């Protein structure tokens, strides 16, 4: 494997979309490294519908969604290394990989695309006290066991977290014969989509407790129950409200974190809020030859957004490999204002802008709000504004700005929701 243009780390939806866009841009040789025995990443276990409505204008299940990408990539100059784990990326751009089939490999490419996705927050991350028996799983691990390995994690289940994965697992477990005792949510609002509450919880009469949390796990060998308490405004459990729910399983759907440990040796700038690498509008990291996309950059709500972002990364990684992308010299910062938790990209590269491309800024709000204005301003001038009926932390919002509005600008761009 000589003269590789691009190495893409991860063969999930993000890596596949990046590969597709890189081919369209004219990349001649691409290597996709995937640790699983097949492509598709987490979508392989996301057998439920709800994907593709914005990207394909059609509602698809996870396997159908990635299937559309793998179909398109057939016959293209892409080498897929399956069952292969990247162990390290060195500062001089060497990617070390091990697999049973190929042994230990060190590959070098003109550009690298990080598409490793994310991992789930664990019980230890949120520090649920109590005993440490078997029967506590993150929702995604349980989803893999049930949907791919045909293994049942439990019969009587409490789910902590009302994110989409949590609710979808409530339905899956029910359909496979388990009894879902309750779904418990710390916040006073639903973390996931309403549709999932209706179709995954209400349809099966599964109770949802907002402003509640699991305060203690009991059980010596296997989970025997969990204590659930109401929380006050500061999310602190209210004494005297604890109630014991008997169950053999606790599933946790308590958030996702970008899986970035591979970049430890290449010193990329990392956002303290998204916990992923800081990127510009080309999805280019602080190291010019390294691009990043999908949930490794920030945890997205919809795979459709991942695909869009990953195509930008793939396209520009190809441009970089083909010598068509100049190194950024002047970068503008994009900063967050009122009720915006984070924005991606966090930087805009202004020196390659001989084109008139639109720049999409994806962001998440801090709190749910109705009848708001999404506003982008720079140097006290509003450059974009739109109204929205509803915004919530669970959904990604975006605004589109024009590069021509940023000429001669030097101070940061501010995005706010008011």
């Amino acid at each position: 494997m000589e003269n590789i243009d691009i190495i893409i780390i991860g063969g999930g939806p993000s890596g596949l979309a990046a590969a597709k866009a890189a081919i369209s841009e004219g990349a001649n040789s691409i290597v996709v490294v995937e640790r699983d025995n097949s492509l598709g990443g987490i979508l392989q276990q996301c057998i439920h519908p709800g994907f593709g409505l914005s990207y394909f204008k059609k509602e698809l299940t996870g396997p159908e969604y990635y299937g559309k990408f793998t179909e398109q990539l057939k016959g293209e100059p892409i080498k897929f290394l399956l069952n292969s784990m990247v162990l390290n990326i060195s500062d001089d751009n060497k990617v070390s990989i091990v697999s049973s089939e190929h042994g230990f490999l060190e590959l070098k490419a003109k550009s690298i695309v990080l598409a490793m996705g994310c991992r789930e927050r664990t019980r230890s991350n949120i520090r649920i006290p109590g005993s440490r028996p078997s029967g506590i799983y993150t929702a995604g691990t349980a989803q893999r066991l049930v949907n791919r390995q045909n293994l049942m994690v439990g019969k009587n289940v409490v789910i902590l977290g009302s994110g989409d994965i949590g609710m979808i697992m409530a339905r899956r477990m029910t359909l496979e014969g388990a009894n879902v005792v309750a779904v418990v949510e710390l916040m006073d609002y639903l973390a996931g989509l309403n549709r999932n509450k209706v179709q995954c919880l209400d349809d099966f009469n599964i109770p949802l407790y907002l402003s509640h949390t699991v305060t203690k796990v009991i059980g010596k060998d296997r989970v025997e129950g969990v204590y659930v308490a109401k929380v006050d405004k500061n999310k602190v459990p209210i004494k005297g409200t604890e109630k014991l729910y008997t169950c053999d399983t606790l599933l946790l759907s308590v958030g996702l974190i970008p899986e970035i440990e591979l970049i430890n040796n290449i010193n990329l700038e990392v956002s303290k809020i998204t916990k992923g690498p800081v990127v510009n509008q080309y999805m280019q990291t602080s190291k010019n030859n390294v691009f990043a996309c999908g949930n490794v950059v920030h945890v997205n709500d919809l795979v459709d957004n991942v695909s869009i972002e990953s195509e930008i990364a793939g396209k520009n990684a190809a441009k970089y490999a083909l010598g068509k992308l100049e190194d950024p010299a002047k970068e503008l910062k994009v900063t967050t204002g009122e009720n915006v938790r984070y924005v991606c990209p966090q930087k805009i590269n202004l020196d390659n802008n001989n084109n008139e491309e639109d720049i999409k800024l994806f962001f998440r709000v801090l709190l749910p709000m109705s009848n708001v204005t999404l506003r982008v301003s720079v140097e006290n001038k509003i450059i974009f504004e739109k109204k929205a009926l509803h915004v919530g932390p669970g959904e990604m919002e975006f605004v589109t700005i024009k590069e021509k509005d940023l000429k001669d600008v030097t101070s940061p761009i501010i995005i706010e929701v008011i």
Partner: protein
Amino acid sequence: MIEKIICTICPIGCEIEVVGDKKNKSVSSLNGYKCNRGKEYSINEFIAPVRTITTTIKISNWKEPLIPVRTDKGVLKDKQMDCMEEINKVEVKPPIKRGDILIENILGLNVNVIATGEAL
């Protein structure tokens, strides 16, 4: 009768109040919707709520024990568990392409169960 339906078309989640007669499949009044899609949704949800079932089917002689499937049309909401029971009886073998019908006309509901994954 009156039913409150939470609209699932978009993230706003309007609460729509539907007044009508389920037996006669008629709706006499609708309140609280903000768009036409919401209107349509709430009427359907009142008269005959249907769901696409997504699940898995056992597969032998393949690298994985399961293949993902879905119904090609909506199934009446309260028939979901009956369908699951039927689906879980079936075991298939490769080759299977995406979209292949694995169970035809399940429970006579005029709905097929099709593969969403591949085993080739």
